[in-house]
């Protein structure tokens, strides 16, 4: 039969005729995009650190890291991601893996153009399709866009981004290191840190993104991502080998390094840096004996002899790597154990004796000869060393403490001890009696070490007196916390005035004044200012001073020391030049005296073990070049400006300037005003003048190539300005056109 319903039923569809259609009349009206829509990229170029993680994770090879004109520095490579929209498929993995959280996706997804080149896009620097990227010059052009002109995200446009540290794919918390509790650790010198287990080390190592930013911060340029990668693969053998490539004291570094690398780590800004130091420590702890696993190739002796003064990290590094290169090395060490300050100055609860022994015995095994208890200048003369060896390396370090300069210090017969001496004596097993109450003056690591060591010498009450606030202390934060855990009192903003003595010259107390922090008025850090009438007296048995150390150059005969102008005029042979207590060195750590190289604390200002090792390695290169006498080996023995720039001595306190063709060293105060000037002449003035002129010519050409280090915002010369204006007007025109189209 006829299906009436089947025939009439469909007619009900005609009811839509009277209804409003639900078509969206795009572009007149638009539909709301979902909150988490993944559209086109936006990058906060100021927050981006150029680590390249986005490019590494991209499955489609869509992200390039390109220099768009940002300055590279320690924690920023200066590169920024450029997205190829001919590749991107908006999976947003790049956003999820961005450690700085700068990359995000917007709700904008309409990207239409007729030129396929325009789909290369620098997020955060460029408006969609505005710039054709043909070459690097175009990208440099982008960088010139001033901050205000950069595209900004409007409210609510950002859709896919890491709202907090828990979003995304990254783990911002490091695996915590297990430590002895404070009450247990003050009872002995047992090591505080317990080290990672294999699983913990693995979990920590997989956090590493492998970008290598840390390398740029490490003075020694250790191959950090590589050895962490080896730990991830559980290949500890190759991990140790990678570490030993340029660090002969890895276990020491694994325990006490100042780890500048971790401050450059990509995680540092938003979370905990990868525990690079602990991972290195983990690797080195896996082996009882390095001999069996390090497959270093020792070249046969080549007949050249190198003498090294001081078996500190710098000296040992030079000794080890020169021995590997086939030199006959001899190290003279004044103390009965090698290791320098790491041996004598680091308390054993941080750096146990046996781990140092392990490394040094391995070195001696490789053929490094060390003469212990041999003080140069006393047991052996410097002249003799100079005569015997083809090259000499001086790495004596800073062992002489500064005087406190307090009233009563000279008169005190007992009870005043420097932290360095205290540590040395404790480390060498001597019994030290500090009484029941100890005050430590200073805020550096040495001061904290002194305090914590004192705490372990029995039931001792330890107080640290520091002129500034706790947050101004130069010591590691971890160390300060550790000290507090162990019951060390810290009295900040206390300026010591006078040491109180009894009639036998024994210390009974210390008088100090409280201080308030006042602004120095020049934008520098606040200065402490005494508060009148706030004197207090702290009764103590021992005063430990830890306000700094200096080098002892008494072993150097006078003729080897540089005599400034007189020397220059008389033309007598040049000696080792020192500058503010430090030896002045050039590119390869060579001193102003031929065949003498130097490194370590008395050369660099950072004064830590890893810098000493870096100095040592640099000197190894220098000595090798010097002794092999190759073409590029010409070691320059005159001070020029560029040399001094490289010189580790110079930091912001010191600037060099030219005056009448002479190179003048200028000491500046914190705000950049000239405080003192001293003339340092290295070449005869005429020659220097030529040099300077040449340099200036070079500089100007360099500037023209915009290769100077400073951020190259539009240059002030007229050509540049007009060009920029042209660009601006062009872009304005373009935007107008676009509007018209709409």
């Amino acid at each position, binding site marked *: 039969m006829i299906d009436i319903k089947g025939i009439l039923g*469909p*007619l009900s*569809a*005609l009811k*839509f*005729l009277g*209804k409003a*259609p*639900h*078509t969206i*009349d795009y572009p007149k009206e638009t539909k709301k995009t979902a909150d988490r829509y993944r559209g086109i990229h936006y990058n906060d170029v100021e927050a981006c650190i150029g680590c390249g993680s986005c490019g590494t994770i991209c499955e489609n090879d869509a992200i390039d890291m390109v220099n768009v004109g940002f300055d590279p520095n320690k924690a920023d490579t200066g590169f920024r991601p450029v997205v190829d929209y001919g590749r991107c498929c908006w999976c947003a993995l790049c956003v999820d893996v961005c450690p700085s959280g700068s990359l995000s996706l917007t709700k904008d997804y309409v990207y239409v153009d007729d030129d396929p080149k325009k789909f290369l896009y620098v997020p955060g620097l460029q408006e969609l399709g505005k710039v054709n990227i043909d070459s690097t010059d175009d990208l440099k052009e982008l960088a010139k866009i001033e901050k205000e002109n950069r595209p900004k995200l409007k409210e609510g446009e950002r859709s896919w981004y890491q709202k907090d540290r828990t979003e995304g794919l990254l783990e911002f918390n490091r695996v915590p290191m297990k430590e002895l509790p404070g009450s247990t650790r003050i009872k002995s010198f047992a090591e505080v840190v317990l080290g990672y287990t294999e699983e913990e080390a693995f979990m920590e190592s997989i956090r590493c993104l492998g970008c290598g930013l840390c390398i740029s911060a490490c003075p020694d340029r250790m191959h950090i991502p590589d050895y962490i990668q080896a730990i991830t693969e559980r290949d500890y053998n190759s991990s140790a080998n990678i570490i030993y490539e340029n660090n002969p004291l890895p276990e020491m570094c694994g325990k006490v390094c100042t780890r500048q690398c971790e401050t450059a780590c990509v995680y540092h800004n938003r979370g905990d840096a990868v525990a690079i130091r602990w991972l290195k420590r983990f690797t080195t702890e896996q082996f009882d004996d390095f001999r069996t696993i390090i497959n270093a190739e020792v070249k046969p002796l080549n007949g050249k002899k190198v003498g090294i003064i001081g078996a500190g990290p710098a000296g040992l590094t030079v000794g080890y790597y020169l021995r590997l290169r086939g030199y006959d090395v001899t190290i003279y060490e004044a103390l009965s154990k090698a290791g320098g300050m790491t041996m004598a100055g680091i308390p054993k609860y941080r750096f146990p004796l046996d781990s140092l022994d392990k490394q040094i015995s391995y070195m001696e095994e490789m053929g490094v000869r060390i003469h212990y208890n041999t003080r140069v200048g006393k047991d052996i003369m410097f002249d003799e060393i100079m005569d015997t060896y083809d090259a000499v390396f001086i790495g004596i370090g800073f062992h002489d403490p500064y005087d406190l300069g307090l009233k009563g210090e000279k008169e005190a017969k007992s009870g005043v001890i420097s932290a360095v001496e205290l540590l040395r004596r404790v480390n060498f097993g001597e019994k030290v009696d500090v009484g029941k109450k100890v005050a430590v003056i200073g805020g550096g690591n040495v001061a904290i070490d002194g305090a914590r060591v004192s705490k372990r010498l029995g039931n001792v009450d330890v107080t640290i007196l520091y002129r500034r606030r706790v947050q101004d202390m130069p010591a590691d934060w971890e160390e300060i916390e550790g000290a507090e855990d162990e019951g060390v009192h810290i009295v900040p903003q206390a300026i010591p005035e006078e040491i109180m003595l009894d009639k036998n010259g024994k210390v009974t107390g210390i008088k100090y004044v409280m201080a308030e922090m006042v602004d120095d008025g020049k934008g520098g850090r606040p200065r402490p200012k005494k508060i009148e009438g706030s004197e207090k007296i702290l009764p103590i048995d021992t005063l430990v001073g830890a306000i700094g150390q200096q080098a002892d150059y008494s072993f150097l005969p006078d003729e080897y020391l540089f005599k400034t102008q007189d020397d220059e005029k008389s033309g007598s042979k040049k000696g080792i030049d020192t500058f503010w207590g430090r030896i002045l060195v050039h590119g390869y750590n060579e001193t102003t005296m031929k065949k003498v190289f130097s490194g370590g604390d008395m050369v660099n200002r950072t004064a830590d073990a890893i810098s000493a090792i870096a100095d040592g390695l640099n000197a190894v290169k220098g000595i090798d070049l010097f002794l092999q006498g190759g073409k590029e080996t010409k070691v320059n023995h005159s001070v020029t400006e560029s040399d001094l720039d490289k010189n580790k001595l110079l930091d912001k306190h010191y600037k060099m300037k030219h005056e009448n063709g002479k190179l003048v060293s200028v000491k500046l105060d914190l705000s950049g005003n000239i405080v003192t000037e001293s003339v340092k002449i290295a070449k005869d003035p005429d020659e220097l003048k030529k040099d300077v002129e040449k340099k200036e010519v070079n500089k100007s050409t360099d500037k023209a190539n915009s290769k100077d280090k400073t951020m190259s915002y539009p240059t002030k010369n007229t050509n540049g300005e007009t060009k920029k204006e042209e660009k601006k007007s062009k872009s304005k025109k373009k935007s107008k056109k676009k509007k018209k189209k709409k």
Partner: protein
Amino acid sequence: MSTDSMYRLLVTIAVILGSIIYGFFINSLARRITARVQNRMGPPLKQPFIDVIKLYSKRTFVTHGIMQTLGPILMLTGIISTLILIPYGKGYLTLYSSNGDLITILYIMTFGQLAMALAVGQAGNPYGTIGVARGLTRMFGYELPLILALISLIALNHSADVNVIIANQHGGIANWNAFRHPFVGITALLAMLGMMSYQPFDNASAPAEVASGPITEFGGKFMAIMMTTNAMFVVAKLALLVDLFFGGASNIFILALKIFLLYLYPLFVGLVFPRFAMEDTFLFFWKWPTLIGFIGLAIAIF
């Protein structure tokens, strides 16, 4: 040339142009209505005109032989001949219709389609051939009830002259053939569904099955001619049906209105019913419409 034939010629040209414009107009209305039923906005009313202008402006002229080129032109000739044989009203609007012309119209109407079939054959596109085969089969299907209905009409009016049939319908809606002879009317209306080639009987040009059927190989200017022809053809067919079954029209506006209203019927049917398969199409026409047609014929004769 006499003034009479002058007027006749002018009216003829006006009818041809008017049918083109009106054809496109109802086509675009149909597209709007379709869109609204499908819950969307649809193209602007001028869209068919834009399309046809664009197609005429196409620069390439691909032809596979003389017959392919002639086909659309013959089709155009056929449809113009059909147009001028249909009366659109009184006076000059009756154009060239005379005694016995219903049979002529029926003959000439198929002429265009046969020319088309030849052209498609030369183009050599398999989809085109299939489309033509389907189209002719469908024609074969709906012609039987249609002719039954027309024979009944001729029998009832004792004349094959369309003008006579129109005249016989004077005197109100009740006198219209569609209502006075309901069986004949129903037969004709059902056959008309096939004639208009909308869904559910559009399998000749079914896009998803046979590309676009006969016109697959025709692009650019051919396509433009075909679109124009189609517009005229729709008007011609509807005008004829209006004349035969819905009382004709005293003036051109009433005719236009009636054509449009009649056009809505296959359109609405097409909107809601899905496409029939070929054999179902054929069965459909030879089943109910034919049966009703025979009843109508029987009533008409006896």
